[in-house]
């Protein structure tokens, strides 16, 4: 291998660009990895799952689709206002909520748990099989801000599927990929 000193200026430039390029690529890749596993940045409203859970509200009260179909769903502004027309109306965050309602504007929530587009997950199948919400979402009821505490990658899914009675059926690719 030639020593760096013996390279021409042009070669050194090319090498330099290549090194910087590779570094940038690494940083970018890292950024994507971090982006995929880290929590969503700030939500438009400081909504606390903990407060609501402590008041005895079940997950399904707001995430109405969870036992009925693939998507758990996010409540409409109207649903929030069902309670917050009367409850905690003097809180600044609730006033923000009322602002959305008055403007008839949807709340731009940031997604917390995300799967790539080639993964098809069905909430209702898991609810029917008796899987608790916390098995995948962690102790959301304890969180003031929901965070993706469990890394939901393919290994995570398969680990659990492997333990089931109908393991063979649940290991089929078409269960999640279609």
């Amino acid at each position: 291998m030639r020593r760096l000193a013996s390279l021409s200026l042009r070669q050194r430039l090319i090498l330099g660009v290549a090194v910087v390029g590779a570094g940038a690529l690494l940083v970018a890749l890292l950024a994507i990895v971090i982006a995929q596993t880290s929590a969503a940045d700030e939500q438009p409203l400081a909504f606390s799952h903990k407060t609501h859970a402590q008041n005895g509200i079940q997950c399904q009260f707001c995430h109405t689709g969870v036992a009925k179909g693939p998507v758990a769903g996010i409540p409409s502004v109207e649903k929030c206002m069902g309670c917050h027309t009367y409850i905690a109306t003097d809180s600044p965050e609730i006033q923000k909520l009322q602002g959305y309602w008055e403007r008839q504007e949807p709340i731009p929530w940031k997604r917390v748990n995300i799967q790539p587009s080639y993964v098809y997950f069905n909430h209702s199948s898991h609810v029917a099989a008796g899987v608790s919400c916390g098995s995948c979402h962690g102790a959301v009821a304890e969180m003031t801000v929901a965070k993706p505490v469990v890394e939901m990658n393919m290994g995570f899914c398969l680990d659990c599927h492997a333990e089931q009675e109908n393991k063979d059926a649940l290991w089929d690719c078409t269960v999640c990929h279609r």
Partner: protein
Amino acid sequence: MAEERQQGHKWTMIVDLDKCTGCQACVVACHAENNVPSPSEDEIIRGRANHWIRIERYWEGEYPNVKARFLPVFCQQCGNAPCEPVCPVYASYHSVEENLNVQVYNRCVGTRYCGNNCPYRVRIFNFWAPHFDPPLEQQLNPDVTVRGPGVMEKCTFCIQRIRRAREQANVEGRPLEDGEVQPACVQSCPTDALIFGDKWDENSRVAKMIPHERQFKLLEHLGTEPAVYYLKGGETHVGE
């Protein structure tokens, strides 16, 4: 050939060539259901018409005693699939549960070996990223992955419909009924030339129709064991 009932379902298609009018309803239904982009004029000329189901037209005889024969061709969901063993990354994979030959898009690295080895020419390679002139992307079916460039794709017997129906039946705690799942092509076919079901369900329409006196399988001699039965066109019994 006696076939042993195994795990899961044996999804089977019957194509009655006596009824197929070549009308293309199934072709458009498939494009709509499976997010298959429309091939341009240029791509078709290059032999890259990306239809998951296509209707081949064969001429027979000479004018004036000429006949046109329509043959709908799509993935035959082979029991002994030539596309499977050649895939270096196991993206072309045999689903034991559904008894289908499936393509795992996120595994596929685009060697195109499977396409080369398929005698039915039903595997389609995405040379380009799919493009839908906005707002045509609104038509996309959210139940089906939009395949990226460099990926092989093909007919799935509408696996998304099969899985959705199975999951629903599961949640409701009941078995899947015959006719509950219909791939988009079968659903659309005006003349009922396409019939679909689980051959291992004794009460299914396909189980009752097979064996059939007019049945044959496409390129049967290759030993691919297709899950598609064709019924050849009949001859008239009237006069002449």
